[in-house]
């Protein structure tokens, strides 16, 4: 029987729009560590928007179709059984589409109708497994093998791991989670903690791992988003963290932008740095700051990495 390690050695890669825009460093570092870990990413050609929140709010069935097209391409064009989406929004939407296609006749009807009109194979639930970048490393490499790849390590860097809300909610679209053993927890996720601990970090106990960052509120009420983010940044600092590790482009951008805004609007300064977990893993494996796109982050963490002797 094929193990997850075998299955995840080569996966279809779905970066989504954020990783080609504001989250470019996440894309750069994901590809860089894939190369180091000898994991093959086969980017899906001609991928489309997952439906994000905009489409979903207008017509959830159209969102299901959009995500199903990505899954169909992964299966039929990229010829993969596993699709890896590092963006929480994309990951969430592909999982939601999978759930809807398995459980709702209406979703199946809409997807069939539009797919036929668009002249591509109709995606059927179960044809492809959707995973997050955290699953990909946790099981495609595993902690023991990852430990062997660590060179300088993170040298006790104090990290608050922030997962955001879409990685675990709603829990019924993630049937593989909360299964005990080595499965992920929806109330206290730990995969990022596990990987960064292997890389030499000191994870702090962080009470706001899945707290809302106000992402959906940024345009309608920026001040409330700033307050929510400032509170998360302050909680990370109160927990003793030097860095907040992220795995969601929306959260990452929100934390970086509102950290600056909190200083400007509320005169509240926080110094905790915001870094993608893939960037941290890359640094721990001996990659340079530029190779993992550290200089592209808004939150300037280069000096901290030098001070800590990590680069």
């Amino acid at each position, binding site marked *: 029987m094929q193990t997850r390690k075998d299955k995840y050695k080569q996966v279809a890669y779905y970066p989504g729009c954020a990783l080609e825009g504001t989250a470019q460093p996440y894309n750069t570092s994901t590809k860089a560590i894939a190369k180091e870990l000898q994991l093959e990413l086969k980017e899906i050609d001609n991928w489309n928007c997952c439906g994000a929140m905009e489409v979903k709010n207008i017509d959830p069935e159209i969102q299901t179709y959009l995500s199903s097209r990505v899954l169909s391409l992964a299966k039929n064009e990229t010829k993969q059984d596993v699709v890896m989406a590092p963006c929480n929004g994309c990951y969430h939407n592909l999982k939601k589409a999978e*759930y809807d296609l398995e459980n709702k006749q209406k979703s199946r009807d809409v997807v069939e109708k539009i797919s036929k009109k668009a002249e591509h194979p109709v995606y059927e639930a179960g044809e492809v497994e959707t995973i997050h970048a955290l699953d990909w490393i946790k099981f495609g490499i595993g902690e023991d093998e990852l430990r062997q790849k660590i060179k300088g390590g993170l040298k006790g860097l104090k990290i608050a791991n922030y997962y955001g809300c879409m990685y675990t*909610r*709603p829990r019924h*679209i993630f049937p593989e989670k909360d299964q005990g053993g080595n499965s992920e927890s929806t109330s206290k996720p730990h995969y990022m903690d596990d990987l960064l601990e292997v890389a030499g970090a000191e994870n702090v106990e962080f009470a*706001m*791992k*899945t707290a809302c960052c*106000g992402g959906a509120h940024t345009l309608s*009420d920026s001040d*409330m988003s700033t307050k929510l983010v400032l509170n998360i940044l302050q909680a990370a600092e109160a927990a003793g963290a030097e860095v907040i590790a992220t795995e969601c482009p929306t959260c990452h951008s929100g934390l970086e932008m509102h950290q600056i805004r909190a200083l400007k609007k509320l005169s509240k300064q926080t110094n905790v740095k915001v870094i993608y977990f893939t960037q941290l893993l890359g640094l721990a494996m001996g990659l340079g700051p530029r190779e993992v796109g550290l200089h592209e982050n808004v939150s300037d963490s280069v000096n901290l990495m030098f001070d800590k002797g990590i680069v």
Partner: protein
Amino acid sequence: MRDLTQLETALEQELNPDDPVQAATFLLHVGEEVMENWLLARQKKPTDTLREGFRILALHRQGAKGDPSFNACRETARELVYHYNLIRLDPGHDETVRRLSMMQLLARHLVFFISGKLQEAGLGEFCCASKPSRLKSN
């Protein structure tokens, strides 16, 4: 019952580290009052029942009924209870001051999150989106 602005102000005050259990109880009650604000704004009578021994968890459950995006603050409420328990069990612990400060931040998160949701009910939709399937699960 204090409104959300009053609760935000109340959370600015210094906590008494000499009586951590009292301070933790105060913060837990602030969390309950935040939930009450949400329920009353939705024309629901806040429950006096307990869930897992805590009213705030029962209030959260009541608030999320028919409005699954409210679950975006479920873990925050649970963390508030968790920290309360830690302080209650061992008030003299070295970490008590830090735990109290974390409770303060958690209670503040509830104030901001629910203030946001009262202005724009869609807050939380992005995260626990997929509304149709969520409604089904409830």
